[in-house]
């Protein structure tokens, strides 16, 4: 029954990772910055705030937060964290994760359109645009990784006993996808609410109170799901032997490393124009293709 | 029957009597086919074998339909003072002479007599083409009679050479049977030349491109029941003549010579008709060009040869006769109703004259070879023959042209048939006789494909035997 613990664990630490990233950014920017537990405070605050709902909205707007939350939690269930076999290995595989996340995104985009404000529409449009362009890169990197394992079964994949060049490249490709999906720089900027630049934030602009809390939480979880995948691809737990302690250690190191990288990227690059983002994703696609080629070559 | 008009005065009764007469002819002849064991020949001048019987049957069908249709048509013309009563009577006289001469063609056994009969059809129908004495119709008639006579001269030339070739091997007669029997020994070159002349000569009459030029004019200007006769059966009589000579030729120089010629002419005709159909404006001219197309198809079938090809060709002759006459009658009604022939102006026929419209629509789909109508089957058979003989290029071209023509006709007629009718126009009622014609033809059109009548199948099969010269 450690499994539930795992999933609960990442659901709990998910906001923390965001906090850490923010902390790292602030430190890099020579600021004091907020504590790493700030996201929790935000969530709690939002959770007890009164909710303001636009009167144009329909039930779509209402159920979206729950669906989004559910989808990311299901994704979290699919991801192996420190034990090889994920809880939900009978439910599906690596490919399913992409589709599950797509479900949440679909409803978020609808909700963005629901209120009838042009920000929401703009946000949904851009979100769908970027995510649809991110799909090929994601699927290629998944394929590359899975080709090394001979299956798309996550448990088997992360049970690999050797680490291949193609997997690493695929990991980087997935990293870029993750940046796009978790609306980080240089694709999107979580910090600003400047109308013309925001993407994810614009989409959820109409949400407030508890619904917003759910959506925030969902995006934290989504982020950690991606990070866990990448961490498991780049530093598979098994390098350190099957021991559970070592696994946890490896996992935490991985997550921290990735967070650091993300934080560093966020402060060091400027946000791209929407149509430059296409090139960014195209690059991830090319990386994924390269990964496939290499893994077909057998490296 | 030619005397009939001199007795009866009123166009209507005249027409009815006429139609009844042709009905008797049709039914009598069908009975004759059923009963008599072909071939039969009486006093060595008339000779009816299966092939002839088949053609006579076709002619009988179409003439009957035309006669039935004429009743209403002529009466309305006479009522509308387009033509005087005498003119109406003249019409029936000519009609009868015309159909008599057409009936004569397959009946006589002497090839020169065949030639004369065909020349007679030209001479009699010329007046029917120029019936309305308008400038256009007279022009059409002149072109028709001149071009056909020129063609027919060559046909006679060919006949003479045939006769010479036959007499060289000691058969001093133009009797078809003797010539066939003598076929083997004749001088090959001579026969070849003769057949070329025959093909060009009768081909002119049959409307093979590039000798087809008279056809669209004549068909479009002729009085409508006659247009049906012209493209329904007149062309077929010429085909019959060519067929007769082709049999002799094949006996003498082998199948390939004639089949090559047939295929070439057929493809040219298909191509020409396709081009002209696509850019056509006038309904009856379009139908005329489609007749050229179908004659091409028939010759393609004869050219592809083999049992299947010949079957397809003969079957196609009947189908085309039926369908095309239906189309011409429909066009006649439409043109009478809308007072114009330009397909860019006529709209919404289905809503303005439901019965004719629906019949015309179905006829159109039959004409462009859609199942379950009969033409689909014959065209398919011919295609089968083509592929069966491995003539891929010819068959491919055939398919290509068929598709082009399909597109062209659909493009023109779908606009004419559907769409909005002119506001001032109210839905029309057709006369009983007209309805009868349409129903009669439509039944033939629909039934022939699905369920071939046994006796027809029988005579077609045995005429194939004749064509293949066994």
């Amino acid at each position, binding site marked *: 029954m450690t499994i539930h613990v795992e999933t609960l664990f990442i659901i709990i630490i998910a906001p923390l990772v965001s906090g850490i990233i923010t902390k790292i950014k602030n430190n890099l920017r020579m600021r004091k910055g907020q504590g790493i537990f700030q996201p929790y405070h935000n969530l709690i605050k939002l959770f007890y705030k*009164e909710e303001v709902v636009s009167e144009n909205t329909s039930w779509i707007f209402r159920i979206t937060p729950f669906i989004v939350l559910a989808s990311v939690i299901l994704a979290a269930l699919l991801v192996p964290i420190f034990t090889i076999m994920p809880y939900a290995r009978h439910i599906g595989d690596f490919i399913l994760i992409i589709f599950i996340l797509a479900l949440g995104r679909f409803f978020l985009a609808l909700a963005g359109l629901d209120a009838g404000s042009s920000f929401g529409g703009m946000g949904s449009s851009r979100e769908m645009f970027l995510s649809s362009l991110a*799909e090929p890169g994601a699927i290629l990197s998944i394929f590359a990784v899975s080709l090394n394992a001979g299956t798309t079964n996550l448990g088997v994949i992360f049970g690999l006993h050797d680490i291949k060049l193609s997997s690493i490249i695929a990991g980087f490709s997935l990293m870029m996808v993750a940046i796009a999906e978790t609306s980080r720089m240089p694709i999107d900027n979580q910090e600003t609410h400047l109308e013309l630049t925001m993407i994810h934030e614009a989409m959820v602009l109409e949400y407030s109170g508890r619904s917003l809390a759910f959506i925030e939480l969902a995006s934290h979880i989504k982020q950690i799901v991606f990070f866990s995948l990448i961490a498991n691809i780049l530093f598979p737990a098994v390098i350190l032997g099957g021991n559970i302690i070592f696994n946890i250690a490896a996992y935490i190191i991985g997550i921290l490393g990735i967070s650091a990288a993300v934080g560093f990227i966020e402060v060091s690059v400027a946000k791209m124009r929407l149509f430059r983002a296409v090139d960014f994703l195209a690059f991830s*696609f090319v990386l994924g293709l390269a990964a496939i080629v290499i893994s077909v070559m057998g490296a | 029957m030619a005397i009939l008009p001199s007795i009866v005065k009123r166009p209507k009764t005249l027409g009815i009597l006429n139609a009844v007469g042709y009905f008797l002819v049709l039914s009598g002849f069908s009975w004759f086919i059923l009963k008599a064991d072909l071939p039969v020949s009486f006093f060595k001048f008339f000779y009816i074998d299966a092939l002839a019987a088949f053609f006579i049957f076709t002619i009988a069908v179409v003439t009957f339909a035309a006669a039935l249709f004429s009743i209403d048509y002529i009466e309305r013309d006479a009522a509308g003072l387009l033509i005087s009563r005498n003119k109406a009577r003249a019409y029936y006289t000519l009609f009868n002479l015309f159909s008599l001469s057409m009936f004569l063609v397959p009946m006589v056994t002497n090839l020169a007599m065949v030639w004369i009969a065909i020349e007679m059809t030209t001479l009699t129908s010329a007046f029917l083409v120029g019936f309305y004495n308008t400038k256009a119709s007279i022009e059409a008639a002149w072109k028709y009679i001149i071009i056909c006579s020129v063609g027919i001269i*060559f046909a006679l030339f060919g006949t003479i050479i045939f006769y010479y070739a036959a007499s060289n091997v000691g058969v001093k007669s133009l009797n078809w049977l003797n010539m066939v029997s003598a076929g083997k020994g004749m001088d090959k070159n001579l026969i070849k030349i003769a057949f070329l002349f025959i093909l060009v000569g009768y081909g002119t009459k049959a409307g093979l491109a590039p000798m087809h030029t008279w056809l669209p004019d004549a068909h479009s200007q002729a009085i409508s029941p006659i247009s049906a006769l012209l493209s329904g059966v007149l062309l077929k009589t010429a085909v019959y003549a060519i067929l007769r000579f082709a049999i002799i030729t094949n006996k003498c120089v082998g199948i390939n010579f004639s089949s090559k010629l047939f295929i070439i002419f057929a493809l040219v005709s298909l191509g020409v008709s396709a081009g002209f159909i696509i850019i056509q404006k006038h309904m009856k001219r379009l139908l005329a060009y489609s007749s050229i197309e179908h004659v091409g198809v028939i010759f393609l079938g004869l050219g592809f040869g083999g049992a299947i090809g010949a079957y397809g060709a003969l079957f196609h002759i009947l189908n085309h006769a039926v369908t095309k006459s239906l189309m011409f009658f429909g066009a006649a009604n439409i043109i009478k109703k809308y007072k114009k022939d330009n397909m860019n102006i006529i709209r919404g026929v289905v809503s303005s004259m439901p019965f004719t419209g629906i019949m015309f629509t179905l006829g159109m789909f039959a004409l462009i070879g859609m199942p379950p109508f009969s033409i689909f089957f014959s065209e398919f058979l011919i295609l089968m023959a083509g592929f069966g003989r491995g003539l891929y290029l010819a068959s491919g071209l055939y398919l290509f042209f068929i*598709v082009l023509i399909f597109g062209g006709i659909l493009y023109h007629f779908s606009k004419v048939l559907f769409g909005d009718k002119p506001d001032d126009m109210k839905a029309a009622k057709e006369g009983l006789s007209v309805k009868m014609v349409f129903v009669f033809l439509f039944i033939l059109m629909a039934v022939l494909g699905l369920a071939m009548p046994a006796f027809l199948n029988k005579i077609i099969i045995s005429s194939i035997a004749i064509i293949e010269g066994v």
Partner: protein
Amino acid sequence: MENFFNIKLSFLFDPLSIFFLFVIFAVCLASAVYSIGYLNKKYSNGKIIYNWFLLAAFIVSMALVVSVRNAFIFLIAWEIMSLVSYFLVIFDSREEKSIHAGMIYLIMTHVGTAFITAGFLIMYKYANSFDFLALKNACVLMPPNVKNIVFLFLLAGFGVKSGIVPLHIWLPYAHPQAPSHISSIMSGVMIKTGIYGIIRFIIFILGVDSIWWGVLVLILAGISCLVGVIYALMEHDIKKLLAYHSVENIGIILLGVGCSMVFLEFNMSSLAVFSLIAGLYHLINHAVFKGLLFLCAGSVYNATGNRDIEKMGGLIKKMPITAFAFLIGAMAISALPPLNGFVSEWLTLQAFFVASLTGYMAGLKIFFGLCAAILALTGGLAAACFVKAFGMIFLAMPRSGKIEDATEAALSMKIAILFLVFLTFALGLGAGIMFKLLAVVASCSTGINIGAMNFGLNNFMIMPGAVSSISLSTPLIALILGVIIIGVYLGLGNNKSRKYSTWDCGYYKLEPRNEYTATGFSKPFRVAFNFFLLPYRKVEKIRGSLYYIKSFKYETFTTPVFKKYIYYPLIGAVLHTAKFMRGLQLGSIHVYISYIFITILVLIIFMNRF
């Protein structure tokens, strides 16, 4: 020869036919029920009877097409199907537009039929019979180059019917013009008869002969996917949008089929069966949810009287059930778990994965990877497109006055729609069972015996053990999602909230014209794919005076690439030749006679050539 005309009307009820019959009857049942309410007020009684007559004929002909066992009768049924559907397309035959659409449709499909006929007749030459099984036996002896030609002919012929790019142009014309229940049948079922033809005549009868067949099909399929979905994104006429999505989904189906053709050539039987299953599964899924979407579109069209989604909005409040149904359809077609579209796309992706794992040559492996990428991109774009469609039609504020008095559809229409919604769920959640059934169909049509294979068949999950060690269980997905949603909702859902108008940056009142438009929504895609769409715009200033501009009119268009660079040149060439030929017949009798003269001379000169 004598017995040519009494070909016996004989049937071949193998699993493949039965599968297609099921698809046909499922969708046609819904559409027929739907049409009761749909036609009710709009048309006269005569028109309605006419509709029923045509509908019956249509269904029967389709059923014949997929169940006869004789190529000639198949051809007849095929043509009759086209003819009847033509009459259905021009059902509102008063509009020039629908006449034009019907014409394009019939001409295109006739071109296809010509190809099919040619293919059949070449096969007949070897078999001397039109019976399927006889053909099948004869095709074994056929020389490979002939086989290739037949393959190309059949692919072209059936490709027209199923709307493979670049033969797809008739779809966006014909589907919108037909009445909606007909569009749902045409797009849901009729274009599938093309797929049936491909499976029956290329896989079953002809037998895959070389790798490039499969690869060609895959390439065409990939192109169809992308082109279809991109055009759909640019389209704002709801029914045209759906029609383009049919092109896309046909592409997805063919991805599965082509993959299986490649495997057949490698004779990796289990994989061949598996990927064919994927294709068939997507086929039935598409039939169901596309039928559903078209019916919903029809209800919307009935309620609002137009098809332009820019003029809609807020309908979810007026017609909740239709909105719900449309949402389900949209989720299914954008492959969102746990609905059926997801299952088949997942299967297809698995097929590609295994292909790129075990394909013989490296190049092929990478090619399969690319196919997967294309499929993924297509899925993403489809999702975007349906966010646009659903959002613009049902959400936010009405964009035109017409919407205000829109009402929910009639009872029969609702029943039909909900029936299809049920099927969508059933196909999604019953994936295990469907997989089992389809395995039988696929094995029959590939002639591979799956008895030996370990397909780990299970009612609750797909475990293609023969292919790889993974499993997918849609019921569990649904269960978990449901539990979490309901749990969270009951546990934490209730919260004090108040209604207030949307935040409008202090702008005094938010109006529909402030809303985001469909054009705006698809702008990023238009820019991203401009290399293919070749968009251009027209800005029109209506000036009050030299200095004062009353209003702007901004229109944007995309160039119809295929029409412009393939079809117009062809038609132009034909017309040009025809116009040129016009010179042959200028009415001069002398010229006419000289034709005869020249003919004679030429014939005499070349006599010995004949």
